[in-house]
């Protein structure tokens, strides 16, 4: 009888999938409500200007060295890797233009956003989760302040506005890395390299690539804030929130990128 009772309590795979699906849709609806609240709070006074500037500094300025180093290496490596293939077709002169289009349209925004999600997203997720665990968010609420506006709106706006700036900077440094890469096995002047780059780059390369980075930043900030703000599993929840912020933030970057590419191709 005991064995039979035990068998009856084992969850069937269908029930397990059903439970996970239910949990997934609840999370999606919660995140949608969180996003709507962000939009509402972002456009209603009072504005937390000083906290926004502080967060923009922390998110932007302090991420810059990492983004710059990665950008430089990205341009350098892409050039070195592409050169032999182009050389086989006698198209080495196309190297600056090809690398520039690759970096500006796709690699620069996506790689920078992924690094940003790893550094900034995990930081925001862990910080807010730890504030939640130690009742600091509750303390803000009982003091009559609006913790959502102070913590979530400022951080999400900072990630939304600073990621495009970092991407533009990273693209520039990547192109410099590509110039260095070109000169490792060749001799291209700085002027000629960048003339070739800007000859092939068009508005339709730069504009959509920059616009999508606002959405990357929004997704990274919103997901990190959502995971941290709703953490409720004690100290274990802090690590979980940091981890989830990076994983879901990165996933969202790829999904947004896919949508952006489809959308852009409609106009090309």
């Amino acid at each position, binding site marked *: 009888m005991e064995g039979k009772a035990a068998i009856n309590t084992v969850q069937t795979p269908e029930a397990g999938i059903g439970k996970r699906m239910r949990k997934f849709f609840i999370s999606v609806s919660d995140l949608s409500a969180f996003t709507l609240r962000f939009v509402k709070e972002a456009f209603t006074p009072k504005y937390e200007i000083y906290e926004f500037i502080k967060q923009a500094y922390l998110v932007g300025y302090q991420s810059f060295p990492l983004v710059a180093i990665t950008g430089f290496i990205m341009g350098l490596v892409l050039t070195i890797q592409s050169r032999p293939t182009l050389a086989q077709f006698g198209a080495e002169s196309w190297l600056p233009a090809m690398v520039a289009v690759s970096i500006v349209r796709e690699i620069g925004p996506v790689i920078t956003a992924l690094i940003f999600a790893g550094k900034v997203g995990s930081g925001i997720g862990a910080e807010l989760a730890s*504030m939640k665990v130690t*009742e*600091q968010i*509750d*303390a803000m609420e*009982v*003091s*009559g302040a*609006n913790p959502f506006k102070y913590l979530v709106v400022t951080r999400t706006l900072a990630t939304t506005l600073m990621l495009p700036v970092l991407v533009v900077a990273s693209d520039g440094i990547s192109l410099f890395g590509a110039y260095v890469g070109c000169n490792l096995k060749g001799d291209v002047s700085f002027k000629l390299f960048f003339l070739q780059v800007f000859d092939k780059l068009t508005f339709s390369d730069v504009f959509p690539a920059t616009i999508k980075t606002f959405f990357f930043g929004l997704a990274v900030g919103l997901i990190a804030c959502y995971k941290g703000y709703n953490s409720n599993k004690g100290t274990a929840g802090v690590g979980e929130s940091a981890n989830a912020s990076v994983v879901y933030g990165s996933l969202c970057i790829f999904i947004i990128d896919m949508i952006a590419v489809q959308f852009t191709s409609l106009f090309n």
Partner: protein
Amino acid sequence: MGKMVAEIEGLQKSFGDHVVLADISLHLEEGENLVIFGKSGSGKSVLIKCLVGLIVPDGGSITLLGTDITELSVPDLNKLRKKVGFLFQSAALYDSMTVRENLEFPLRDQKELTQAEIDALVLEALTNVGLEDAIDKMPVELSGGMKKRIGLARTLILKPEIILYDEPTTGLDPITAKEISRLILDVQKKYNTAAIIITHDVECARITANRMMVIKDGKCAAEGTFDELAASEDELVNSFFK
């Protein structure tokens, strides 16, 4: 009977199937310290979090300073919250801010205050808890007792009419715990604040309580003065005083 500053009637709260508060009623008079005893998990903290709207109750009514908080909009609730201080068990100091910034935080909306007035208020609050020297320290540099004092100073800066203390002496050594208990009493005398003090600490209750209440299974099990409850023959009540 003094003026009533808080009144709870038939408060109920469950988390899933777990009933935390079954039917709690209490009142708090102006300038009175009400100490609430109860086993861990008996719903004491949930009770005071319901009082400030941090947790929404399932049933019952909560009247705070003459206003039913269950019917208030968020902006109105926030205005009312400025008259109610809350000292958290962990003190809940904002760890990315200095002590000065922690104390200034509740004053951010008071645009009529000049920086000199804010500085004076911060200094007064710190003087009340005897920690003027800690003004530029970060919370991580403070001991447990100092954090509780700064937490109390941050609560006092808005000159609240009611203060809710969530286990103010938990985790402190007996000497520091006694200092905090005496500080609670000093605050009551100086500002004539009413307070609800959640604690397991008999010494804290002895020093601070004007009236006491014991919670069991989400209901009020006993009520009276410290001496009345200390002399009680009820097994649960008696167990706190042994």
